């Protein structure tokens, strides 16, 4: 009888720890978290000005292509740092991604979002002292770039998320930010955006299943046009977004 009660208590305490994770997870995925994601459009603005997108169906196609490219190029980095959430693994991933992000616009966007995420994590997730140490020693040093995807994986890993959650979360925030940019660029209204987001959730899940848990050596671009069009962002005469 007593033994059964002990087991129950232990189960409850594990369950409540899991429930506590959920609050951190939701906060990390919430768009009000100040990581500067709202400033980036993933090449959407350039795609509109180059007439790649002239109607809502074009935007849906574009979004799916961006998600697939994110999955093929960046999920390996999220995965690597989630499963090995330590400085050395993270530095190595950061260095490799710096060499892989050959498009200047997306590289700068990645660094700006990564740095913002680190600053935010150091202030918010105080139960992980490493964030503060990293922020204080690395941000200004210039020895690392602080790219978004590896840092995101590291934050998830240190907060105790499993790799499936962290990779899905990365895809989710990408989808969230592209759709948010689309509403601000008048491509789709807020309600239409929500409908679309739900509509393609199964596509995003399919992409995660296909590209998750791969080593960094397999990271590749599957939508090379995105590199070209995103690289055009700096040629835009007038623009709302940074990338």
């Amino acid at each position, binding site marked *: 009888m007593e033994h059964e009660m002990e087991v129950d208590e232990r189960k409850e305490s594990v369950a409540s720890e899991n429930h506590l994770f959920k609050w951190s997870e939701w906060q990390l995925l919430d768009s009000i978290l100040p990581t500067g994601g709202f400033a980036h459009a993933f090449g959407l603005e350039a795609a509109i*000005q180059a*007439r*790649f997108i002239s109607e809502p169906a074009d935007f849906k196609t574009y979004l799916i*292509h961006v998600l*697939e490219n994110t999955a093929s190029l960046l999920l390996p980095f999220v995965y690597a740092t989630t499963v090995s959430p330590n400085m050395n693994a993270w530095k190595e991933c950061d260095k490799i991604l710096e060499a*892989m992000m*050959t498009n200047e616009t997306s590289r700068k966007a990645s660094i700006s979002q990564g740095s913002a995420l680190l600053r935010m994590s150091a202030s918010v997730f105080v139960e992980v002292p490493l964030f503060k140490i990293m922020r204080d020693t690395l941000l200004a040093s210039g020895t690392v770039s602080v790219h978004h995807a590896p840092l995101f994986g590291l934050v998830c890993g240190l907060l105790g998320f499993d790799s499936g959650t962290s990779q899905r979360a990365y895809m989710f925030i990408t989808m969230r930010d592209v759709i948010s940019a689309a509403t601000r660029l008048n491509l789709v209204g807020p309600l239409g955006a929500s409908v679309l987001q739900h509509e393609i959730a199964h596509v995003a899940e399919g992409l995660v299943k296909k590209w998750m848990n791969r080593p960094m050596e397999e990271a590749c671009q599957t939508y*090379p046009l995105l590199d070209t069009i995103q690289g055009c962002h700096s040629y835009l005469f007038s623009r709302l977004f940074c990338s």
Partner: protein
Amino acid sequence: METGFVVVEKVRGKSSVTQSFSKYPLKLIIPNKVGSNKTDAVWIYSLTYGGGIVSGDIISCGLTVGDDCTTVFTTQSSTKVYKSVGFKCSEQNLEWRLSRHARVALIGSNALLVVVPDPVTCFSTARYSQKQVFRLASNSSVVIVDWITSGRHEIGESWDFKLYKSTNHIFLEDQPLFLDSVLLEDGSITNISERMQGYQVIAMVILLGPKLKEVQIQVKEHVKRMMYEQLYTPTLGCKKRKSFGQTKPDMIASCSAFGPKGIGVVVRISKNYNRSRCIGFRDLRLTKDGAPQGHHHITDVIPE
């Protein structure tokens, strides 16, 4: 087992081939008289027997360019990849070493390597993968063109192949500098043709190193000017935009710097074939002021 290798070194002050070997399915031809005799450059042509790469062919080639040497590597014609039989994938793996000695990468070699093959064309159902690894010393310079066309356009083939993967890795003093991998595979969520949005050629041009500083500046300016004219700022209100009926530009390109202090520039280009087969052609001449290093033409965009 390598199917080919070439070593270029300075012999009596001139870039010369000191070792070369090739075997089926690769053939390397190194003609003596290409370009003006005032320029000091070795030209290497890579050919495949039968004019193309057959299902299951595996080609691996190692090349070394010694200190102060200039080498141009190109092809006799476009690399055609024939249909895949039994899901076999054809591969080309090329490893380039710019160094003082053949097997050891050392400091500062002042060499220039220009890799300007014709584009790869994968026929219907083909599977092809290529990897090029460049190991540079600190002041090596390199020009790399890597491009692919959609297929036998005249018979209606457009991005009809099964798999194309192109990987380009550049290491500077053994540190990763530029790692790019493009994968076009049929059977994913969207098909290849959809992802290409009607463009028939995609190309990547890399300009890296001290010898290419001037060219980098010229190319950046040229691309910027060209794209300023192509990009259109939408007027307020969606309705107006629709009635304009504007189509995508026939060619889009963008330029990005990479590496410490932006020592490299990568240009990405996508081009359409329009009805009149109008040629978008850009010639870049590399003229080394006062130095007998090289005078090369580089075709940036496909002439059809």
